[in-house]
């Protein structure tokens, strides 16, 4: 009953104050508008004029053509004189892709298969220039996936100079997400914890018989939910503006990741929110004022951004990264976004974040009982 009342109070405080709701949702809207605006300046077409070299035949080709035309793009199928010529054209950016089906591909895929000798579809494309190669690869992969797992795709991506920005964006996305989460957590936690301490209203609650862990949880649980809402708003702002910012087709982008990838990304984000809220609650409980807590938290935020950047530009950090909060989520998300499935890293990260959160809640509870921290001058 006491915990429930504490939780409800925080929700009441938030959901009955339009200014707070705007504060938490506005970043997502601003991000969407800003990134979309930047995207419109940079340019970026969502429809393409594909030129694809094709060797071999498959019913999948018709499906690919239908999918492409449905998206408003056009495709011209070309027959190479030699495979080398097609590869060179793709490398030079003069063709979107080169697709090679092995002989009797459809029969091999649709008939009885030998797992030891699966047919291989060769795929040459370049993510350079207008992004047509990458977009075609996404469509073709999605169509081929409908055929099941009875073949393998051997993809060869020739990256051009224009890809650097794109790759940087992909690498920076986890960092951006973490930064938005941190900002959302900061905006709600500082005011609620450090603010209450500074105004003395926390003392009024401390003078009741409610247990200190309840007070800590009564703050951290609802604030995590509210911060998750803010983080979701920012995350959606980024995701929805990506097509305009990077000239990608959102549908294809979403299709290129499986349900399990999304689930893991969602769980990783969710696991990070209570951890950061708990951490900022700890800093806020320690501080004497919102101003002091803001100063400490800003330093932590800078450290967190540096930590995220490390993961963005350094790959293969190893499984030990699961034990480093924030870095573990950034690293796992990065691997998921490039198409990997770091199950062990993700699960370990989720577990560690949960343990760290529980430890932080225990420390905040102890701090609430410590008179030097709560009443020291």
């Amino acid at each position, binding site marked *: 009953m006491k915990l429930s009342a504490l939780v409800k109070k925080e929700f009441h405080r938030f959901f009955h104050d339009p200014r707070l709701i705007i504060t938490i949702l506005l970043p997502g809207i601003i991000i969407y508008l800003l990134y979309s605006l930047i995207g419109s300046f940079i340019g970026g077409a969502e429809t393409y004029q594909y030129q694809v070299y094709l060797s071999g035949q498959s019913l999948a080709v018709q499906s690919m053509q239908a999918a492409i035309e449905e998206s408003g793009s056009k495709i011209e199928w070309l027959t190479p004189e030699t495979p080398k010529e097609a590869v060179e054209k793709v490398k030079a950016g003069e063709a979107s892709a080169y697709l090679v089906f092995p002989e009797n591909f459809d029969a091999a895929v649709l008939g009885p298969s030998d797992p030891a000798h699966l047919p291989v579809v060769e795929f040459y494309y370049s993510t350079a220039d207008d992004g047509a190669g990458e977009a075609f690869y996404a469509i073709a992969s999605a169509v081929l996936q409908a055929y099941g797992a009875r073949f393998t795709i051997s993809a060869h991506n020739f990256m051009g100079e224009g890809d650097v920005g794109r790759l940087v964006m992909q690498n920076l996305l986890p960092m951006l997400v973490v930064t938005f989460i941190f900002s959302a957590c900061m905006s709600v936690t500082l005011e609620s914890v450090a603010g209450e301490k500074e105004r003395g209203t926390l003392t009024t609650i401390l003078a009741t*018989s*409610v247990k200190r862990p309840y007070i800590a949880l009564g703050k951290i649980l609802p604030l995590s939910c509210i911060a998750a809402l803010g983080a979701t708003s920012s995350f959606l702002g980024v995701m929805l503006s990506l097509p305009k910012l990077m000239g990608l087709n959102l549908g294809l982008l979403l299709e290129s990741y499986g349900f399990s990838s999304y689930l893991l990304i969602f769980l990783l984000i969710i696991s990070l929110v209570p951890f950061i809220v708990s951490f900022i609650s700890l800093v806020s409980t320690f501080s004497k004022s919102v101003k002091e807590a803001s100063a400490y938290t800003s330093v932590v935020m800078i450290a967190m951004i540096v930590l995220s950047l490390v993961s963005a530009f350094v790959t293969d950090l190893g499984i030990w990264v699961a034990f480093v909060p924030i870095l573990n989520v950034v690293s796992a998300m990065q691997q998921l976004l490039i198409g990997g499935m770091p199950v062990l890293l993700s699960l370990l990260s989720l577990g560690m974040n949960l343990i760290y959160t529980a430890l932080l809640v225990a420390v905040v509870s102890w701090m609430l009982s410590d008179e030097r921290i709560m009443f020291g001058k």
Partner: protein
Amino acid sequence: MPDIIFENEIVRAENLKKTFTLSRKQQKIDRTSLKRKVAVDGLSFSAYRGEIYGLLGPNGAGKTTTLRMLSTLISPDEGDAFVLGHSIRHEAAKVRDCIGFMTGELKLEGFFTPDYLFDFFGAMHGVAKEALAKRKRELFAKFGIDRFSGVRVADLSTGMAQKTSLVISIVHDPDVLILDEPTNGLDVLTAKVVTDFLSDLKGMGKSILLSTHIFSLVEKLCDRVGIIIDGKMAAEGDLSSLCAGSSLEEKFFEIYRGIKGEAL
């Protein structure tokens, strides 16, 4: 451990001692090179059922520290105190359940209404919903808060906000009310609201322990008074026997000069 007999004692403080470490900033403010300050130094006193007991002393005498110890917000370094027989050292939760605590400044969140805060603090004290609703009706009607129960505390007049604060401090119908400087910083009208409120509470059979440096408040409200100087109990007793014909102010300064030896 000898048996403790409380009878009508609602509060019994036994040799309470509290020392604080001074920060450099505080050392500068206090103009001292000492790193530790004894805020309360072996304080003992008793307050009895149905009376208003006043702790009188200058700023820095140890009044707030004493009341914070009795409210279990901070722990004594030495000694112990018993509130309705419960030790502040070993039964903090029980002590908090049977006291209402309020500092002079309003410490309620301005965003919420008296109605919401009454229910919230009722839940904090574990008061059952039906009993809480009944008590809210009675107290709000008695102290005229009912007409403003849906107005945010930030939008209430200072007097109404202070009344709300006092009513919320007794939401769980505590036997003992501990008030730290209840009229400090208030204008005369709001101060009267508070003193009338405390008189009403006394009439309702509540026992009140308050700290103040305002002589008139003690003279008007308190049955007994303890004068604290430098964390020690300098004098204690009922007003008539303590003052013995002189005013409380004259008596206080006589005691103060006797201890400090300073010309005022």
